[in-house]
């Protein structure tokens, strides 16, 4: 990347809210139903129908705004945004124009180990559009499209950021953190592949250090975190080339073509639509009770960043360990439960991030009490690490027996009795006089061989530390 330009990125994120029924009617929001089977006169905009606002959608918007440190506006209202597009059955979308439900806020997140802040400009409530299935590879080469209005009218919030983001990777990290926050507060399932989290990006370049923003381009159709980052990388390079060749950036919307790995013109500013916003006459403005808003703010759960800092500060975990538990909240929750019976954070996280993570992804999580018991056996040196792994595998098959019972049943208890082990060691040395001689003459690497022999003779049960000490005693005692 050329050092001559600053990259300026702002995002618009659509988050579908996890309500049972739609925003303004009682049709189901369930995903995957037969097309056009969750529609009614209200969400189809048939004459004479009257919308009624879903209280849960308003609540979720306030919770989301609070989690993003936004000003919550008790007064907000709904407007009609008028345009013709096949995914919009009414030919207008009910949204919030001048008076959105949430005002300025921000989200903090890490880029590597540096804490970054991106400002939120506003959050507004609106209805989702229908789903289009294009006959061709993309909208551009489709002769016709099929429309399903099941999604039309599902409540969503649009989160608009300030143009604070300076790199494509940062945009992705911001979006990942935003998704995590939405998951923690449980207002959305944020599945990008099902479209319940979508993102449009605005990007422009400006001469390094210049206070004046360049002409921006909007990129649509970003269906994954990877697509967001790749599309921004592509667009940054495209704009740089245009500028370096003395050209001008045209203000336009471009669509990301995943297959081709490039952005393509969708519509230019010349035919930018005129939305003719006006207040929806059927929906009176919202006047929320400030006490209710305060109570929702107070009832927010622990958010990802708070959790990260708590795990680092109180549990003394590394950034990497803490981030693992934060990014996989099911592991984070399990960690907390194991800690109740076995309060050793480092040991727990080591177990969870190791073989456990792989096995749990395949089979689901284990009972935290069982994990605590296993960790206790390892801590008390009743079993060694390898035996610990075996027991873990065993627990994923059945949790009926406790780790201690498995140890007893299999006779896997670690052999730490020095007198017993000394006999084994003496036997092995007696069987290998040549090797003993060579070791005593300086072939140090043979030490590992003796350890291996003892472990083999004890079926892996010997306490490696005790074996180590005994062998040193016996071998080095007679060294030349």
């Amino acid at each position, binding site marked *: 990347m050329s050092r001559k330009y600053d990259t300026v990125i702002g995002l618009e994120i659509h988050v579908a809210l996890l*309500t*049972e*029924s739609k925003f303004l*009617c*009682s*049709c*189901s929001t369930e995903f995957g139903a*037969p*097309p*056009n*089977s*969750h*529609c*009614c*006169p209200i969400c*189809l905009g*048939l004459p004479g129908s009257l919308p*009624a*606002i*879903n*209280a*849960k*959608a*308003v609540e979720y918007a306030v919770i989301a705004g609070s989690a993003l440190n936004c000003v919550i506006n008790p007064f907000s*209202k709904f407007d009609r945004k*008028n345009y*013709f*597009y*096949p995914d919009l059955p009414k030919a207008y979308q009910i949204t919030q124009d*001048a*008076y959105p439900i949430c005002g300025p806020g921000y989200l903090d997140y890490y880029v590597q180990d540096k804490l970054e802040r991106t400002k939120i400009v506003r959050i507004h409530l609106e209805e989702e559009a229908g789903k*289009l*299935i294009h006959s061709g590879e993309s*909208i*551009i*080469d*489709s*002769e*016709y*499209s*099929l*429309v*399903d*209005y099941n999604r039309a009218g599902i409540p969503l919030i649009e989160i608009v950021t300030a143009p604070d983001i300076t790199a494509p990777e940062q945009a992705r990290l911001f979006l990942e953190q935003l998704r995590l926050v939405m998951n923690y507060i449980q207002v959305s399932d944020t599945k990008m592949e099902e479209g319940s989290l979508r993102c449009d990006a605005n990007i422009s370049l400006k001469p390094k250090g210049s206070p004046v923003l360049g002409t921006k381009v909007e990129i649509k159709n970003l269906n994954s975190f990877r697509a967001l980052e790749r599309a921004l990388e592509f667009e940054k390079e495209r704009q740089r080339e245009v500028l370096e060749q003395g050209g001008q950036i045209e203000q336009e919307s471009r*669509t990301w*073509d995943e297959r081709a790995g490039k952005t*393509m*013109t*969708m*519509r230019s500013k010349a035919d930018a*639509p*005129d939305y*003719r916003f006006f*207040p929806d*006459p059927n*929906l*009176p*403005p*919202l*006047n929320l009770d400030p006490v209710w808003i305060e109570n929702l703010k107070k009832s927010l759960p622990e958010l990802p960043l708070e959790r990260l800092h708590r795990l680092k500060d109180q549990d003394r975990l590394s950034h990497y360990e803490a981030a693992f538990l934060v990014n996989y909240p099911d592991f984070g929750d399990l960690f907390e439960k194991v800690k109740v019976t076995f309060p050793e954070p480092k040991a727990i996280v080591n177990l969870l991030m190791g073989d456990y993570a792989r096995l749990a992804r395949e089979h689901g999580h284990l009972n935290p009490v069982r994990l605590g018991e296993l960790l206790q056996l390892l801590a008390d040196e009743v079993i060694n690490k390898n035996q610990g792994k075996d027991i873990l595998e065993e627990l994923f098959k059945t949790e009926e027996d406790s780790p201690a019972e498995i140890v007893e049943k299999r006779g896997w208890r670690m052999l730490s009795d020095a007198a017993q082990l000394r006999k084994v060691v003496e036997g092995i040395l007696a069987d290998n006089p040549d090797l003993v001689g060579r070791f005593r003459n300086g072939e140090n690497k043979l030490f590992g061989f003796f350890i291996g022999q003892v472990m083999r003779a004890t079926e892996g049960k010997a306490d490696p530390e005790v074996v180590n000490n005994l062998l040193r005693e016996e071998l080095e005692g007679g060294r030349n």
Partner: protein
Amino acid sequence: MIDREEVIRIAALARLDLSEEEIEKYQRDLTDFLTACAQLKKVDVSQLRATSHAVTIKPRLRQDRVGPSLKQTDVLSGGADVQDGFFRVPRIVEGQG
């Protein structure tokens, strides 16, 4: 007087196809309308709170409960072209990338 092109542009936004007489009529009507607005703009409202909505009642919010939807066949009955349970619409965007 508001010009022809403006009337045609506004009509296009609403997908209206106007005849010559209608264009002239709306040039006059819209000009009258805007003149009236210009007069209203002269009134001193600095001491008044802005009216953002004509209705002052509080909205009745609805509980988040699922109710019945229309049958698919009824939903599709208003469509000019349908296929496999979907509405079918002609090409959406013009041009190539």
